């Protein structure tokens, strides 16, 4: 099966989980920080993505906690998740490096 390029939101969610397990709201605030406040995931988008990632075996439930009578479910990357994120990060880095070197070549990079 051909692998499509990963969406920005998916990439950021996986990146948030790469540092260790997190719960839903933790992912949202972490993604906000990683993206320098450019991406604020909404709950619907987040859970659509989490469902798909779980079905694809990239993430799994780590544990559950009740904090102030609210359920928190923590997610973590699976081995496949680590692999896919590494591949995607490498792909993005390679593209960015080409862009930077070309911009440098024409003196458009400050």
């Amino acid at each position, binding site marked *: 099966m051909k692998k499509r390029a990963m969406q920005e939101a998916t990439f950021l969610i996986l990146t948030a989980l790469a540092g260790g397990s997190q719960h*839903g709201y933790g992912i*949202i605030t972490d993604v906000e920080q990683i993206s320098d406040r450019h991406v604020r995931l909404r*709950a*619907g988008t987040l*859970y659509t993505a989490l*469902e798909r990632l779980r079905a694809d075996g990239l993430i799994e439930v780590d544990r559950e906690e009740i904090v102030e009578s*609210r*359920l*928190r*479910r923590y997610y973590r990357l699976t081995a496949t998740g680590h692999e896919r994120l590494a591949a995607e990060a490498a792909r993005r880095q390679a593209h960015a490096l080409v862009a930077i070197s070309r911009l440098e070549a024409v003196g458009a990079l400050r």
Partner: protein
Amino acid sequence: MIDAADLERRYRRLLKCYPAAFRREHEQEILSVLMAGTEEGQRWPRLAEAADLLRSALYMRLQTRFRTSWAWECRHRRVMVPVRVISGIWLVALTAILYGWGVGGWWGLLLVPAAAGHFYSAYRSLRHRVQG
């Protein structure tokens, strides 16, 4: 405190749009995410937030439906592939006949994509292994 209870009730109502299976597992969890993202004294879900929930719920419903019918077709591909291929050929033949007689008109817009859909379904059933 009253405000928070109002808001939670409204969020719960929005979450009712999700498929039941998803709600059983995730309602409490999403609710805590939603409530964590609210401001002091907020009584109504923000419009963008509500729209996002509705969109995600609709997406999940469509996906659930699509996935089940898709899995069914894959399981029965021994029957369904010939059915799809014959239907596709028949639709192509029908299109040719209609246009050959000069009475095709706008029907091609309906018939050609339908035929393509049948062929594509057959192709997908053949290519993919049954999952789960």
